[in-house]
């Protein structure tokens, strides 16, 4: 047998070895001791926390030749067989490879036979979440009332994928992530036996990389031993794990707090040059800012921070350079950066941009402070003093009182191209109509469009409307007249006196209203169009040949002629 990785070599063989899962081992042990062993178990939890190991230990405990015991002997043939994974009565099934209903049928076929040697026939189905839905359903009846000699142990990382009907038939055990100190002490045990020299600090780094998973930590330890041999220096471990140098991180933090863009770019170049992963760099930056925030909010941060006294002093000096709001904001942005880096096609650019952005941000202001300042400002305003330099707020368009003093309105009315526009420049009739439209008073605008301007010399404005017309009736409403007066006042920049004159229907010598002018223009165009069409040689010859007559002329397109 060639080399066995640590995670396999040191797979726990007794409940005592199973670290961090005391709640599981105790419950199972008690069940065995009191003779109340269920027939179906579900072990769930993150990767590498001991689910499969626990299943095997439990199987050994049930089948040990020394009798059912919470502490299997690990010496009898039954125990040894299970450890090697080829027990005749303990079937370890790969649930992810044997997913179909046929596999379950085979299992049901198999379950009827008594165990060949041991007490129980134990089915360990690992990665059980991958079974198909039919396979699960085919298992239901068997799982509910299996023969006395059968036990099921399911192990999975994804319990949410398992049907509720299966869950309800199993005793479920949730495996926890293993706390850091427990991992470290286990690693220490292992390196002692393996005769590897490695400091506790390095082991902590390794354990942290495992993120609560024993197997991850052991894989990393394997890697460290493979690289460093029997003596692992802290620097080597750090380099191997790709942890970014502290100095570089602190320099970056300093440059960020001092808003030194140039230096930040230099940092990114150095990260690239040293071959660190940008993502790791981002992650470590977040971690550093977390330390700074802790330094800022706690009186004695060393309880939560794993740093030496020198490092702490350095961190505290940095933390003093910026406000808490600032630090937290930077931390927030960096947190987002980490996930962006994972998907970015150009990570170095993403990193540079975010750092430059952060360097550009103005210092934050506390919202409470701002509100206080705002309140003070309002108080001073209401007293009427101290704000002479501020621009006078422009009065609302409908208030007549302010119209006298206010400057001419800003939206200069657009000139309408109408044939009957005698007054050029500002203050003409079409301009007024356009202005009213711009002020979103469509009702007044439409009345004005139908009206003819009789006198247009501010302060007097006289408009004529055909007697008996609907628009004239509308102007009986004093409110509307007032609004119109106010609008006109705004437009001409002076108070206006409005006079409305009813006109006889057939009066010819008044200026036509805008609507009339437009209609006139339209019919002129129609006439011209008709003449053009009739003159067309094609039409003429059509008339000649077929004796046709022109009934109607319609423009194909408005802008055609």
């Amino acid at each position, binding site marked *: 047998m060639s080399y066995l990785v640590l995670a396999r070599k040191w797979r726990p063989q007794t409940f005592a070895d199973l670290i961090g899962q005391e709640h599981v081992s105790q419950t199972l042990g008690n069940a065995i001791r009191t003779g109340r062993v269920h027939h179906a178990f579900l072990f769930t939890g993150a990767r590498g926390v001991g689910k499969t190991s626990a299943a095997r230990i439990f199987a050994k405990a049930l089948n040990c030749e020394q009798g059912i015991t919470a502490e299997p002997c690990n010496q009898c043939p039954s125990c040894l067989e299970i450890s090697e994974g080829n027990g005749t009565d303990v079937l370890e099934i790969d649930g992810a490879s044997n997913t179909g209903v046929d596999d379950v049928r085979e299992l049901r076929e198999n379950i009827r036979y008594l165990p060949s040697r041991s007490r129980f026939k134990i089915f360990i189905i690992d990665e059980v979440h991958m079974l198909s839905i039919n396979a699960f359903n085919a298992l239901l009846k068997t799982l509910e009332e299996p023969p006395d000699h059968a036990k099921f142990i399911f192990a999975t990382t994804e319990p949410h994928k398992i049907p509720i009907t299966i869950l309800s038939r199993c005793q479920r055990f949730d495996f926890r992530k293993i706390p850091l100190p427990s991992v470290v002490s286990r690693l220490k045990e292992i390196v002692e036996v393996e005769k590897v020299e490695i400091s506790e600090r390095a082991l902590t780094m390794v354990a942290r990389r495992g993120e609560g998973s024993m197997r991850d930590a052991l894989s990393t330890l394997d890697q460290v031993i*493979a690289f460093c041999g029997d003596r692992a220096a802290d620097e080597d471990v750090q380099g191997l794990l790709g942890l970014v140098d502290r100095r570089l991180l602190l320099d970056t933090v300093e440059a960020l707090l001092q808003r030194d863009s140039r230096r930040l770019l230099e940092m990114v170049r150095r990260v690239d040059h040293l071959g660190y*992963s940008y993502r790791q760099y981002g992650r470590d930056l977040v971690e550093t800012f977390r330390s700074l925030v802790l330094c800022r909010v706690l009186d004695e941060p060393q309880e939560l921070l794993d740093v030496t006294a020198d490092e702490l002093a350095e961190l505290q000096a940095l933390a003093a350079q910026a406000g808490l709001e600032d630090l937290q904001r930077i931390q927030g942005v960096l947190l987002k950066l980490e996930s962006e880096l994972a998907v970015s096609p150009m990570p170095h650019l993403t990193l540079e941009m975010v750092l430059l952005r952060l360097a550009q941000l103005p210092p934050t202001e506390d919202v409470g402070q701002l509100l206080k300042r705002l309140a003070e400002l309002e108080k001073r305003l209401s007293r009427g003093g101290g704000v002479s330099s501020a621009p006078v707020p422009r009065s609302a368009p409908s208030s007549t009182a302010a119209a006298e003093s206010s400057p001419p309105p800003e939206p200069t009315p657009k000139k309408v191209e109408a044939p009957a526009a005698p007054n050029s420049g500002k203050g003409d009739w079409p301009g007024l109509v356009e202005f009213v439209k711009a002020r979103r008073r469509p009702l007044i605008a439409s009345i004005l469009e139908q009206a003819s301007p009789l006198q247009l010399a501010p302060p007097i404005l006289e408009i004529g409307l055909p007697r008996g017309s609907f628009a004239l009736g509308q102007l009986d409403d004093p409110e509307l007249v007032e609004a119109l007066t106010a609008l006109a006042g705004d437009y001409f920049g002076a108070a206006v006196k409005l006079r409305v004159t009813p006109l006889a229907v057939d009066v010819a010598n008044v200026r036509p209203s805008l609507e009339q002018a437009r209609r006139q223009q339209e019919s002129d165009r129609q006439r011209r169009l008709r003449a053009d069409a009739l003159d067309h040689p094609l039409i003429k010859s059509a008339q000649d040949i077929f004796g046709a007559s022109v009934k109607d002329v319609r423009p194909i397109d408005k802008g055609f002629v």
Partner: protein
Amino acid sequence: MTFEQILGHQSQKEILRRALASDRLAHAYLFEGPEGIGKRLMALGVARAVFCSRGTGCGDCVACRKVDHHNHPDLHLLEVEGTSIKIDQVRELQQSLSLRPLEAKKKICLINGAEYLNPAAGNALLKTLEEPPGDALIILLSAHPDRLLSTIRSRCQRLPFRRLQRDVLQQVLQQQLGIGDAESHVLSALAEGSFKKAFGKDRRLYLEQRRELLRELTALTGGAVLPRFEFAEKLAGQKEQLQEILGIFQTFFRDLLLHKHGRPENEWVNLDLREKIERVARLETEESLLLKLDALAATRLRLERNVNRQLAMEVLLQRLAPS
């Protein structure tokens, strides 16, 4: 190919060499690192070192040659079929791993592009990966290890590979392609340490079309709308290379940013466009450059999610054109 012939990756070679020498080779490795930097070569190097009849990976013995020609009976190669690696492929692999090796001491399996294992296939691999039958060695290669199942990652010894240094790549490019200083600089900078990119299909794009594209981009003005739409249409037509083209635009604006901050020129990508960069940099502020880079990054992300290309390009150019 022996380890010596593979460029860079000194510490990774050292780790593997030591593991081989002390017979501490794990049963499952995950080689992770950007596309096209030599992970596969390295894995094949390991295979040769294990199979070699002289025990060195000499390259002359029968076993080594068989590895080189991909016809060693104990070397299995799992590649992406279609869009993913499927469960049937994994079952086939399990089947063959359960048999005894034919010629060598152990079986070796390379899974190229492990992030393409579909969920069923990935899960089916778990038990095999944890305790391979017999004495097999499984090497997973992945450019995006984060997309792998965490349960797979945890079962492997991870070996991170880093980007090749730009100057190393530049040297190789000069030697192998016989191109000049400026060109090799641009190409190596754009390839971001990946041989695959530098020698692959994008070479023409990087060397020849890049200048033209950037000329058109900088010729856009705030006022004229029509050329902008025409350019957008042209870009949208480049379905295959659009991401790379936007990448080129990103490098250009990044160069401007670096120029603004007075960084040395050898950090630039588009060294051959110095005058243009200096000219355009005068028109831009840092803030406007950052906004444009944001727009580019956002567009690239959207393109991955299948937005309407034409529309995306029009919106992008609207943002990129000087206001």
